């Protein structure tokens, strides 16, 4: 797979992340769970910034950035703060795997960007009650 294909795949993942975080934000109360609200809001902003960066990168390469879907499957149920946290954690873990994949398929500045994104996503998992992993974004290594 080419670097461009990997960037497109990552962009598609970011479109989904921005959509899902928008839903999670709507299920989170600033008054009742202010910490969770702030965490979801910060994650939404971070993924939106990454999505926009990827759009610029692909446009700069002369590519047509993949568009977002009209809607995405959203984890259910999302009736409690714990369920929202779990959905956010799963989303970050999925993004970590995507960024790790991007690290493998890029070089120089784009790889640096992917490395940073992987680190930030791995750390954000902890905000959503994730536990530190041995190989963030690379679970299969743990089985070797």
């Amino acid at each position, binding site marked *: *797979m080419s670097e461009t294909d*990997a960037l497109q*795949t990552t962009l598609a993942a970011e479109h989904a992340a921005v959509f899902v975080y928008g839903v999670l934000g709507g299920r989170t109360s600033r008054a009742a769970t202010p910490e969770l609200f702030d965490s979801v809001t910060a994650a939404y902003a971070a993924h939106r910034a990454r999505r926009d960066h990827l759009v610029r990168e692909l446009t700069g390469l002369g590519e047509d950035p993949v568009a977002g879907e009209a809607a995405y499957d959203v984890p259910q149920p999302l009736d409690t703060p714990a369920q929202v946290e779990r959905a956010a954690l799963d989303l970050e873990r999925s993004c*970590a*795997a*995507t960024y*790790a*994949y991007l*690290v*493998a*398929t*890029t*070089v*120089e500045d784009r*790889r*640096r960007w*992917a*490395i940073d994104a*992987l*680190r930030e*996503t*791995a*750390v954000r*998992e*902890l905000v959503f009650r994730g536990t*530190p*992993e*041995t*190989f*963030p*974004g*690379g679970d*299969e*290594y*743990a089985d*070797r």
Partner: protein
Amino acid sequence: MSVGPLLPRRTAIALAAAGLVAVTGCDDRATPTPSATPTADPDVALVEKVIRRLRHAQHVAEAGGESELAVLHRTHIEALDGTTSEGSSPAKSAPGAVRGEEQRLQEYLEGAALAAASGALARLLASMSAAVAQRLAQGLG
């Protein structure tokens, strides 16, 4: 989603350098051409340096009483096909020594991931760096 190729273990890297195997998948290195004269693979030296760095961090963690952190480093060394060190108990680390060492290690691993010729190795090293970043974010030391 499939996230790429399996780790090219150190032995595999050495074999690739000798032109005996080809690393495939997302690996961005050119396929080695069989040759009577092995060519140098820059990742072999990089992996050796990373293993030495991880061993040092393992010792510092052990000296600081951070046994789970030491286990993490041992697991990372093993993932690189390195031999873990089971030497004598080191002297106790000064306060803050473990955290400082982990911060330096985390940055070192990121630099190594950036420098790796193999995409699969870069991915593994970046994952290790992220694992250390998680421990630091958790309030290590």
